[in-house]
């Protein structure tokens, strides 16, 4: 029975693994940390699975557990290499007007998102995933109005990071 539950869970997670990868992408900036966080989210999902009743979509439920793990439960590995600093230096050197391609802009955007704090990252993540403010406020446990206000502030903050 337990084995059956395990395998049905793993199958669901395998199918929806991109959601977890995306959470890791927002919250980590190197492959090792990405794998670490992925593993912890998988464990937390499995631990919480008996409480999953199927009244919400599996994917919706994953967003919540995934973000909670990234924001609250996960302990960053000590071996973290600070690649973001290295990359920033590299980007600053390349900053000439001819390099303003879309790809370059995207790199800078991801870079800027990594500079946000954990809660702001959650807002950006849910925004990128097309979640409405009701779901955002539900996931984080804040009011809808405040989620909206904060989202606008995050947008402004991103702008400031990108155009100092």
């Amino acid at each position, binding site marked *: 029975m337990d084995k059956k539950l395990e*395998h049905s869970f793993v199958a669901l997670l395998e199918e929806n693994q991109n959601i977890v*990868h995306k959470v890791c992408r927002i919250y980590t900036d190197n492959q090792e940390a990405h794998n670490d966080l992925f593993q912890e989210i998988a*464990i937390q999902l499995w631990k919480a699975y008996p409480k999953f009743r199927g009244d919400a979509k599996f994917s919706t439920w994953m967003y*919540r557990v995934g973000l909670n793990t990234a924001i609250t439960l996960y302990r960053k590995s000590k071996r973290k290499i600070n690649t973001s600093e290295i990359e920033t230096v590299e980007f600053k050197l390349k900053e000439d007007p001819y390099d303003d391609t*879309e790809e370059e802009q995207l790199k800078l*955007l991801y870079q800027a998102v990594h500079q946000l704090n*954990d809660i702001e990252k959650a807002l950006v993540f849910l925004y990128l995933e097309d979640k409405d403010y009701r779901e955002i406020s539900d996931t984080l446990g804040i009011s809808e109005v405040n989620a909206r206000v904060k989202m606008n502030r995050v947008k402004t903050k*991103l702008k400031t990071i990108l155009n100092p």
Partner: protein
Amino acid sequence: MDELELLKKDWKKDKSNFPKLSHNDIYKMILKRSSSIVRWIFIISLLEFVFWAAIAFAFKDSKEIKEFDNLNTDYIIIPLTIIGYCVLIYFFYLFFRNYKRISATDNTKSLMDNILKTRRTVKNYVAFNLVYLVIATSFALFIQFDQNPQIASMAHQAATNGNLFVFYARMISVTIVFLIGAISILLFFYWIIYGFLLKRLNKNYKELKKMDI
């Protein structure tokens, strides 16, 4: 906000970049042990409970305590012991109740609330123990001065030498050093928990609170 829209466009199409984990990879993962802060907080909290229980047991059969028991102390020791165990059981119950409430399926804020609540329970328990320790030690010291014939004769001798004040001062300083030792061990626990484990959680919790005012 053109920038975020650009990011969103990329975000949506960007699916193939991620490593594709197989059923087996994921299966292996869920069998691994979690290294979440909740697990660490749980372990450390239990250590704190064990630490205080161990102190009580370790000293129970020592020579000094046996000697102490020969003095007329039941009127104070028995109630103190009963209170100590009742409080331990009460805090243990609270701790487990709070721990059971921690669920990754809650919203982020309640999850953080519940984690901090389990910590607060243990913190209160430890604070209780500290107060208890100070009270019990003061009583013990008082009873020793009052009833222990050995100490009485030492005090008497000190009095005849004119050193009574030095004698008392020395006894009290030894007691204070012992208390400082116990408090240092506790501070070490707190340094680990708050400086190390809960730093990020506290920061994020404050951030969420700030947003919701």
